[in-house]
């Protein structure tokens, strides 16, 4: 393990890999966004979720390997029924970001999230425009209203909120207005992430987004129910099948087996090959 830990430290120091472990909690989602990487929707037959024990085990092992933070994504992460309690546990181990569409935050759910207050756990909520119709065109009916309802409630409970905007069609003025909006909500510029649509998953059929080049994304070990992948934009789904081109390892438990193969794949990357497009 110490040899592997040294190799991880070297990979991070040389800019060949990131220090975050990504976990795909589920491929299931209550929305069906037009640019979704994973073709997630309420209708998918195979939800492919990680179980709670597997997630916690991966986080513990990632920490032993020298990774320093966790990202949890999907699908809609809060479709996983036990996620709020698991987040509190994971947040005790390492700083955590969980990506969510924030449309499932009922009062009961917010109560279950209360233990996250003051912890190093941030909810990264998707919002693509300051205009409801523009946002909802891509993210579904009433999405804007639900997000704007949820954010103050979360912040008032002392839960950290970040905002993620996926860029495809927005004008500069629209993005500027969105920034004005998030500042007015109490979300700083540092907590606003903007990235372009990536032409994988559902975005391929709709001819949206930019092709992903080999050096566009910093490799970060990404664990899903289908295996471990090179980065969080890798385990995409097209026509119901998971793309395997960026698969690193089918075996994800124990995590060191997947990490060994991840290091094998990233060893060929040039030192400092961070990112061109800075997609994270």
């Amino acid at each position, binding site marked *: 393990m110490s040899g592997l830990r040294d190799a991880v430290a070297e990979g991070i120091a040389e800019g060949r890999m990131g220090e975050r472990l990504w976990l795909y909690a589920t491929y299931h989602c209550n929305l069906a966004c037009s640019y979704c990487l994973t073709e997630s929707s309420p209708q998918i037959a195979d939800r492919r979720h990680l179980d709670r024990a597997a997630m916690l085990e991966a986080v513990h092992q990632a920490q032993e390997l020298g990774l320093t933070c966790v990202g949890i994504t999907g699908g809609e992460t809060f479709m996983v029924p036990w996620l709020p309690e698991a987040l509190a546990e994971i947040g005790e181990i390492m700083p955590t970001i969980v990506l969510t569409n924030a449309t499932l935050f009922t009062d009961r759910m917010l109560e279950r999230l209360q233990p996250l207050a003051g912890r190093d756990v941030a909810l990264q909520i998707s919002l693509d425009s300051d205009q409801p119709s523009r946002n909802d065109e891509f993210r579904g009916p009433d999405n804007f209203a639900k997000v704007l309802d949820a954010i103050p409630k979360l912040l008032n409970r002392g839960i950290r909120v970040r905002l993620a905007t996926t860029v495809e069609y927005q004008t500069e003025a629209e993005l500027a207005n969105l920034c004005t909006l998030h500042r007015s909500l109490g979300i700083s510029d540092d907590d606003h992430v903007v990235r372009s649509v990536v032409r994988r998953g559902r975005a391929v059929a709709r001819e949206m987004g930019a092709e992903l080049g080999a050096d566009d994304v910093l490799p970060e070990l990404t664990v899903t129910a289908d295996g471990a992948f090179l980065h969080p934009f890798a385990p995409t789904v097209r026509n119901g099948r998971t*793309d395997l*081109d960026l698969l690193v390892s*089918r075996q994800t438990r124990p995590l060191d087996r997947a990490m060994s193969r991840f290091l094998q794949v990233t060893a060929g990357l040039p030192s400092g090959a961070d990112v061109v497009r800075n997609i994270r």
Partner: protein
Amino acid sequence: MPLPEVDEAPLLARAFYRADGSASALTRSFAIAAEMMETLMPFLGQIMDESSIDLPTKELVIMRVSQLNGCVYCLAAHRPVALDADVSDSQLAAVCDLAGLDSLSPRERAIIAWVDQVARDASGVTDALVAATLDHLRDDQLVELTVLAGTITMLNQYCTAFQIPPPGGGL
């Protein structure tokens, strides 16, 4: 069974594609289980490449076992390999059409008798058959030969079960 092209294949599997990006249908079918390839491909290389047993003998065995198991893929894929290894048309006819082994040498006939028994019913191997085979092979060569026959049977079953398309089309 998906047969990914090199740019669709898992990263670890790409090392097993040729430099020009091509690969046999069998290799491509393995690609979705890339970790298995890390041990399987060197194993197959060790078993099927020339060793203490010469290549023509190995190819004769591969063709014979594939014929017995009715593997369309392996027969089509290995016929040109056998010819390249200086296996003659008459030798191929002897092992593939099952019409008779008279054109083969005594050593080749002994080897075919051994692999026939192993492939058809390994429990039917007798001490006399072992002794007869060891008249032509060292004991280490008999071990290799038997592992080769078993490996080819495994590949025959795999290719047939998944209907791996043979070179030149079909299936």
